[in-house]
Structures are given as C-alpha cells and as structure tokens.
C-alpha cells in the first residue's frame, strides 16, 4: 500500500468511517449544512445512561466546592455589594484526574460495544490519560499520539508528564515533534491496527460531558438552593463548552450565562517548531480556542460534535500570569492544589464575579490533577529556562513567548472580552465563501451554528450577494 503523505491523506475518509463507525455523509445537506442534532441523537446515550456508565467506571459525581476565601478576595476589589459566590467543580477527582474522563468513558464504552480491539486518540492533553484509564477498565488496547517535542527533542514538561500518566494506565504512547502532520501518523496507526478512533470530537466525546453540565446544576441547587447564574468553561476545542451547555439545558430551563475562557497566547504560532516551548500552556488557550470556534470541522473527524458557538454567551481571555496566580491562590487560600490549565476558568471567574452581586452564583466547571511537570512551579521554571521574563506588573503587558506577568495587586487581574459578534460574522463569512446561493436549510444552519438570528445571517448574505433559494429539493 502507498503510505506517502498524499496517499494516506487521500484515504482519510475511508479510514475515518472504519475507525469511528459513523457514516458522516448521511448528515450532509444542501450546500454547507449538516444535521447536527440528528448526528447527536443517532449516537444514542441519554443522560441517565451516561450517568450509569460513568458511575460504573470511576467517573462523575465530583464534589462542587465553594471557594470562600477566593470569593472574599474578589469582594476586596469589587464595588460594595458585588462579588458573586465562586464554586469549583473538582473534576480532578475523576479517575485519571480530569473531566476528560467523562469524554473517554463514553468513547471507550462504545468502542467495546462495537467490538473494537483497541482505541487510539490523538491528544497532548489530559484526554490521553483519560482514554488510557478507561481503556484499561474495558480491557481495550490503547495508543495515544502526542505532539510532545520540538525538533531538538526538548519536550514540554506538562506533556511529558501526561505521557507518563498514559503509560501508567498501560497505553502505548507515540510521541511526535511539532507539526499538523501528526494527523498523518494518526491515520496510519488507525489503518494499521483497526482500532477505534476515540476522537474528542465524535458525538460520544461530547455526550460524555453532558453529565457534568447536569451535575453542576443539581449540585448548585443542593448547596445554594438555586441554579447557578453563570458557568465558566475553559475553551480549547469547544467540546467542554458544548457538552456542558447541552447537559445544563437538559435539567433546567433557567437561562444560565455560559462563558468560555481561554489563555491568551496571541502571537505564538501553534505549528511553529521554535514557538512550541515558549508557551506555558499546552491547552485551554486561544491557539486552539479561536480557530476551533471559527471552524469546528478542522478536527480529526469529518463533522465535529464540538460546536461552541452554538452555546457560548460570552468569550473572555486571561493571561498566563493570571492563571498561574490563581492556581497558587487555589492552593494557598483554599487548600486545593491543582494543575494550571484547568484553572483558566477560575482566573476568569475571579474577574467576572466582581461584575455580579454577592447573591449570584458562579461555577467554575473543572479542575485537573497536578504533579511533576504539570504544576505551575514546573511550568514557570521551564519558562524561565527558555528565556521568558517573569515579573509582577500589569498582566495586560504580558507578551506570550516573551513574558509572564503576575498581577501586581489583585485589581489588575482582568478577564478581557472578545467580540463574539465579530467571531460569528467571521464564522459565517468563512462558510459562505465562494458561494452564489444557499438553501433555506443552510440559512437555518448558520443561524443555529452562530446562535444569531435570521436577520443577522441575511444581512451578511446580502452583503456578499448570496441568494437564498426559495426551495431546495
């Protein structure tokens, strides 16, 4: 068989169909749209079933904890009467140490059910350990493919630790240097082994998080007597936000503000061999968050089930120094030592809490485990070794890849709003590029995809001289 890069990429769709067991073609419709809800429904897994599978596999029912000291700290700088109560969902307590266990549990359950001998996932994040851990439970073989090193063989300490964790759960870890062609090796491995593609972006990978959304509403009612007012979600590929929001909607009709937050890594190129080790966050950052929200289908499956723009109400960024600062605050003020990347949403929540009255409830919906390599001490030491300047000042002065700036006092910790309307406009323009007409279904799809209105989309269509067909058979 021809295994050149071009030949393997040309076989992509066949490899995918065999490794996920989903025929994505059946959901395609008209010019640009596909039936997202049907794709989600067809995969099955009602909320109760998800909870049952997870309860039997060391996943879910994590505690919701009130961060009373962090809340009190926010109130020191909020105007009188302001500073919402901040809670965290301690997802680090799932088997394998992160919320990703929820996604892996359903993927591995499905792989076992369909008779696959093993699972493969392409991930440098906590998802690797999660898949390895769940695969161990189901007796599935497991391969995790990581982007880990630069071309000199220098690895991100955080990713090296995640490789160790994968191996601790019995997985084979295939590590690659920087570059999107990781996907090429991933396809070769799927073809060679015939294993299930435990992608983060299949409906299974998203359904598994719906239990998290449901739980955090139920936890909040139990602890505070009401639903949360705001849920803050660290956003990278969009799956965490999509699954959480879908889960919330299944247990309450109350309008809960869903806020996405990402670490600002502006200026660092994600496929750059030299930028690779200049970043201190390998996930939860804008380098994934922005491209994936604009184009979810750039993932490793033909149609991603992670579609953050459908559910996000507000999108903010925080800087690396602010996230490390709050990671330390969680440890020193709340006695909870956790990994930095998961605290991206905590840093955002600290700032957002100051905008809301004291009786409001904000939930930070994840934490992740910490250890050697995957600890803010390790990440900061690595940054310093790579020539990054670390100092106290205004975090807004931070230049990713050159500096990490801790707030010189807590009033300097500020979540910065991204312009969601601009992002939605770009999303729509990207999807209608080069077209002369679209169908009514396509129009409806764009409205749903961007959570906008018919009028919002029609304005953009008119501007580009694109007609909407009266009827499309």
């Amino acid at each position, binding site marked *: 068989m021809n295994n*050149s*890069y071009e030949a393997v990429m040309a076989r992509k769709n066949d490899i995918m169909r065999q490794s996920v067991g989903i025929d994505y073609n059946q959901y395609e419709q008209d010019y640009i749209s596909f039936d997202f809800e049907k794709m989600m429904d067809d995969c099955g897994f009602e909320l109760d079933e998800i909870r049952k599978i997870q309860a039997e596999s060391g996943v879910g029912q994590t505690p919701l904890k009130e961060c009373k*000291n962090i809340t*009190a*700290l926010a109130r*020191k700088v909020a105007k009188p009467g302001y500073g919402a109560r901040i809670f965290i969902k301690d997802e680090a307590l799932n088997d394998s140490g992160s919320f990703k266990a929820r996604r892996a549990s359903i993927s591995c359950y499905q792989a076992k059910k369909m008779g696959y001998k*093993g699972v493969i996932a392409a991930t440098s994040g906590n998802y690797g350990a999660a898949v390895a851990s769940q695969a161990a439970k189901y007796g599935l*073989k*497991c391969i995790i493919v990581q982007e*880990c*090193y630069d*071309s000199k*063989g220098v690895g991100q*300490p955080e990713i*090296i*630790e995640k490789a*160790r964790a994968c*191996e601790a759960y*019995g*997985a*084979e*870890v*295939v*590590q*690659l*240097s920087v*570059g*999107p*062609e*990781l996907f*090429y*090796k991933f396809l070769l491995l799927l073809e*060679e*082994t015939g294993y299930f593609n435990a992608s983060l972006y299949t409906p299974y990978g998203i359904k598994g998080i719906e239990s998290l959304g449901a739980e955090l509403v139920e936890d909040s009612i139990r602890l505070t007597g009401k639903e949360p007012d705001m849920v803050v979600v660290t956003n990278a590929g969009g799956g965490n936000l999509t699954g959480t929001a879908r889960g919330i909607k299944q247990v309450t009709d109350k309008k809960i503000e869903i806020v996405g937050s990402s670490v600002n890594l502006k200026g660092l*190129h994600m*496929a*750059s*061999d*030299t930028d690779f080790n200049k970043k201190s966050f390998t996930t939860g950052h804008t380098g994934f968050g922005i491209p994936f929200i604009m184009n979810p289908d750039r993932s490793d499956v033909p149609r991603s089930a992670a579609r953050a723009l459908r559910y996000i109400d507000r999108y903010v960024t925080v800087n690396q120094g602010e996230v490390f600062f709050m990671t*330390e*605050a969680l440890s*020193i*003020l709340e006695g909870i030592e956790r990994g930095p990347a998961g605290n991206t949403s905590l840093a955002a929540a600290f700032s957002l809490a100051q905008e809301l009255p004291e009786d409001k409830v904000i939930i930070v919906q994840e934490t992740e485990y910490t250890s*050697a*390599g995957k600890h*803010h*001490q*390790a*990440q*900061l*030491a*690595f940054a*310093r*070794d790579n020539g990054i300047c*670390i*100092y*106290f000042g205004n975090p807004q002065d931070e230049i990713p890849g050159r500096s990490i700036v*801790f707030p010189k*006092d*807590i009033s300097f910790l500020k979540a910065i709003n991204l312009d969601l309307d601009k992002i939605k406009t770009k999303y729509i323009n990207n999807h209608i590029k080069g077209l002369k007409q679209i169908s009514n279904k396509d129009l409806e799809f764009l409205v749903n995809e961007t959570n906008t209105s018919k009028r919002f989309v029609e304005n953009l269509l008119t501007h580009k001289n694109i007609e909407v067909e009266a009827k499309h058979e």
Partner: protein
Amino acid sequence: MNLIKKNTWVLIKKTILEPKERTGSIPEETKKVPLLMWVKGYTLDDANIGQNVKIKTLTGRFETGELVEANPSYMHTYGKFVPEILEIDKLLKDTLFGGENNE
C-alpha cells in the same frame, strides 16, 4: 559502548517526514526540520545506542528507528524553585487578611 541486549525495553527515534515531504501550510522554521517520532518497545536484536533497531511495542506493533535509550526513565520534575510564587502567597494573604499586623 554498552551493548543493549535483545528484549530490553527501549526508546527509539524515527523520521516520519523529511523536510521536503512536509505539508505546505506550516511556518518556515517547522518546514525546514523533519517530523520526528519517538516510541518505546522491546528491542528484537542486540544493538548499540545510535544503531537502527526493530522493536515490538506494547500493542504488538513493530517499528524501526534509531536506538536512543535503554530502560527509558521519567526524569521530569517540578523545576528549579521560582521564588515569585512565595511573593504571590504574601500578596494574597496580605490582601485577604490584612498583613502581619492582623494575624
């Protein structure tokens, strides 16, 4: 040089794509270096570090590449101490509890 015996757990390195084979849509600094892979397994032959070997991985696959390390270890740490972390602690506690005078 120490001969690594057959059936030893080893780490190998392999070039997956030469620079000229890399995809067009990546930054120049990435395009001029090869795409490398590291994977572990049991070596099928006696070999020295730097030699090309065939290995059998944990899932029973075979890969070939340059022998890098025998019995590869996890050597990642918490890194050199970063004293600024203690300054963060002081700032947080002073702000919340009002500094030493209020203890």
